[in-house]
């Protein structure tokens, strides 16, 4: 077996050193009735690299990849160009095959990357600090709600109607078990999200208000008004960013009053990968640091006075605090955080702003062309690179029919909000720097065809 270095002679010699006659003498503590006598039946035996690659390649070929067709999906996962150097760097074995940096003297590479990553995220979000990443945006969002509960000692969270339904569902699931109370509703099909309904739901039992920016229909909420209302009642504002490229153009949430900012970092450096692994971004005000979940990397010095980095404030974490920890999380999304950080370094603030302008320009062109299709109208008055179209019939059917023509047309609101009848004709469409004029035209023509 190509991955197992021990030879039969090694095994015999080692058993001799141990004083065991056979390998099964080492499994003596396994009860006889549970000890399998040979390979499990009905499972295949080992296979060559070539055979396995062929099998997996055949499965891969049964999927339509985003880069091979006109592609307009978003809703929390975005198709962006990833510079070649990103993937090269994250495949360096010193990053790829290292563990959590618990031995900082021989993990300064990972630790410095995390310190740089934390700084980048904090600056992007407009807050003082960020952690070393979480599983993904949706779980980071629940962690923010839980943290707001610890900070305010309240347990009622108000979710904006514009929050991604998977994020709202993740929060609702967790809240069932923790006893938190969650106000969550599907969005209304209006072009401009009004903060009034949200604001009227805030009272002095509210721990936090959770607002997605831009929201799940692509609209941009007025964060400052919501922040003022939340703070007036002693609640925190949690802002969720599922498309960090938007912050190349949009004001940072921290500058608009957000107390905690979480997000999905996949857009930068991480491929679509059918939904994971992605990376959760988590930033907040410095005064809340001891209530934060997740790993934190901090600066210090070594015994010779040289600058170095370590994991710190671990008295918040499960391996020290056990049941009193701020979270049970035991990993971050290390390699995805590295990819994000490399991509961000390549872009710089100037490049990110330009990338954001390209995204918005492509969305403008796409929206204009598609809204010209008979029977189709644009819902949004505000958007970044994602917007909602209202079709004359069920958008799920339209998406399926266009997929048969090898056009991946967007995400139907029926897929996101099954059973909400008044949303069924909504189609969420995303354009990025990867979108070409030919893609837009092909989509428009095909859409005209299926709606005719």
């Amino acid at each position: 077996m190509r991955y197992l270095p021990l030879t039969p002679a090694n095994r015999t010699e080692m058993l001799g050193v141990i004083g065991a006659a056979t390998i099964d003498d080492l499994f003596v503590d396994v009860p006889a009735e549970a000890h399998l006598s040979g390979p499990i039946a009905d499972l295949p035996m080992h296979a060559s690299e070539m055979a396995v690659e062929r099998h997996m390649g055949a499965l891969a070929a049964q999927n339509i990849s985003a880069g091979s067709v006109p592609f307009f999906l978003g809703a929390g996962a975005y198709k962006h160009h990833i510079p070649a150097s990103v993937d090269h760097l994250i495949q360096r074995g010193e990053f790829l095959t290292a563990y959590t940096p618990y031995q900082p003297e021989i993990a300064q590479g990972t630790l410095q990357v995390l310190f740089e990553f934390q700084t980048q995220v904090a600056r992007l979000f407009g807050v003082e600090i960020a952690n070393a990443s979480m599983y993904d945006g949706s779980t980071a969002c629940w962690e923010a709600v839980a943290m707001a509960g610890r900070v305010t000692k309240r347990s009622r969270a108000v979710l904006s109607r514009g929050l991604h339904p998977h994020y709202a569902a993740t929060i609702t699931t967790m809240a069932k078990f923790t006893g938190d109370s969650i106000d969550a509703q599907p969005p209304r099909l209006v072009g401009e999200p009004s903060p009034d309904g949200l604001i009227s739901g805030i009272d002095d039992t509210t721990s936090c208000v959770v607002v997605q920016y831009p929201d799940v229909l692509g609209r941009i909420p007025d964060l400052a008004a919501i922040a003022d209302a939340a703070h007036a009642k002693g609640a925190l504002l949690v802002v969720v960013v599922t498309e960090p490229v938007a912050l190349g153009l949009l004001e940072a949430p921290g500058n608009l009053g957000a107390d905690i900012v979480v997000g999905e970092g996949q857009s930068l450096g991480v491929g679509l990968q059918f939904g994971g692994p992605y990376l959760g971004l988590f930033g907040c005000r410095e005064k809340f640091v001891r209530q934060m979940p997740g790993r934190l990397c901090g600066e210090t010095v070594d015994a010779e006075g040289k600058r170095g980095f370590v994991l710190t404030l671990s008295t918040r974490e499960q391996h020290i605090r056990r049941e009193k920890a701020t979270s049970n999380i035991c990993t971050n999304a290390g390699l995805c955080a590295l990819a994000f950080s490399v991509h961000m370094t390549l872009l710089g603030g100037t490049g990110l702003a330009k990338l954001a302008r390209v995204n918005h320009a492509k969305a403008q062109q796409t929206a204009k062309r598609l809204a010209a299709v008979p029977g189709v109208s644009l819902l949004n008055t505000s958007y970044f690179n994602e917007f909602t179209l209202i079709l004359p019939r069920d958008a799920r059917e339209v998406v399926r029919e266009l997929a048969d023509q090898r056009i991946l047309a967007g995400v139907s609101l029926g897929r996101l909000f099954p059973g909400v009848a008044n949303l069924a004709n909504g189609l969420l469409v995303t354009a990025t720097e990867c979108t070409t004029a030919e893609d837009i035209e092909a989509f428009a023509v095909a859409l005209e065809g299926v709606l005719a």
Partner: protein
Amino acid sequence: MTAVNPAGCRPEMGPAQHPAHEDAPRLTNSGDRALMLEEALIFELGRFDATGVDIDEPELEPLPALSGFLRKAAPALPGLTEPETVRHYTRLSRQNYAIDLGPFPLGSCTMKHNPRLNEKVARMPGFADVHPLQPVQTVQGALKVINELAHWLITLTGMHGVAMTPKAGAHGELCGVLCIKSAIEARGEDRTVMLVPESAHGTNPATAAFAGFSIENIPANADGRVDLEALKARLGPDVAGLMITNPNTCGLFERDMKAISDAVHAAGGYVYCDGANFNAIVGKVRPGDLGVDAMHINLHKTFSTPHGGGGPGSGPVVLSKALCPYGPIPFTELFEDGHLTLVDEETAGARQPHSFGRMAAFHGQMGMFTRALTYILSHGADGLRQVAEDAVLNANYVLRSLDGELDAPFGKAGPCMHEALFSDDSLPEGFSTLDIAKGLIDEGFHPMTVYFPLVVHGAMLIEPTETESKAGLDRFIGSMRSLAQRAKAGDTSLKSAPHFAPRRRLDETQAARKPVLAWKGDSGA
């Protein structure tokens, strides 16, 4: 044991001198020393006007759709060109130890070789460049990967079903515990206590507390296993279940596992098994045969997906028939004609009405599923058995080779499983486990897990894994013996190790007392 590296510094040559030659300078102008390269922060290196990505300025119409929301200034993020970026991260990478460089015997972490075919497969566009919300007719291959991996995991563990969505081991624990809580609620009972052995990973009590349980510890007996009588004495109508690790964190198989499960079940509770140590028994023992109700499988341990400097992980949870109805959405469903679909919010009411719900966006760590399935297919049923056998053989070889030099608290009673546990009992006054760990760094190895499990004083937990050769183990054993002997000889240079790493011991107290978690300086101007 004589060493070792014929090209390197040998013990008989005496201690290494610094500087190596009397006439060598102590310092260099650059701060670098040949291949020992220092690297500044990007905030010190970068410039606000620099970028490594060429983007043409777009033809942008006026911005009515963004009016009122535009940021006043570009984010203060310095950039670097591509050559500077590649150099920055490559120089940083050289300050990391990694499996690719040598043994990484962290107990309970299963740092085995990461096959590169897995990386190649995960990057196939049909897997890497597929959106999670594409119509299911366009992602049949991706759903087949999930389904095929699920079949292997269910079969290898002898369980009834599997929840694929959890994103890491601790997230898998959460999934299992939520299933238990849901099942108890469905029975109309109110059980609020989760039992956890003293030797458990910290995630176990943290997870159960996160899900709203109160935690009570169950003591270990003298041979490092759960005290069955103490467990039985505590079981009752308020106990929801037991979270047990098997093989446990002392590296021992819980001999009484079936009796433990039977007792928990008889008292109306459920058995959660922490599957962190599944590598020791994969293909040899099915946890389902031992009465387990839920167990997470760290794909990044047993099934070789890369640890990546701390993640991402993946933690599918296999479930018993009793807990399956409560498992999370979404999941794949296979039809007789061979096509697959996703059961999610739309169809859960009919297909999984008792599900506790969704625990994350989308469908799980697909990029890890492709890697894990590739690994599993490479090994097959026979190779996976050999994995467990070689992992256990390597650990016992280390145990027997070192138990004359170091105290092995449970080593006298019999073999260990995949990891060998030592205490600091045989170290002389003034020397600690930490000194041995830091000395290993100078020897060119990653240290073992230290001070865990808590049930052993000054614990050193060594998990070599099956991908270490005998020659590699002999080098490691030689270094461990040498370090123990140096401590016994009162060699105080061990107290200040490491001497040869990119950094000496770091001041963790200062880091925690005055946290500096982000670069505060001006940069990029």
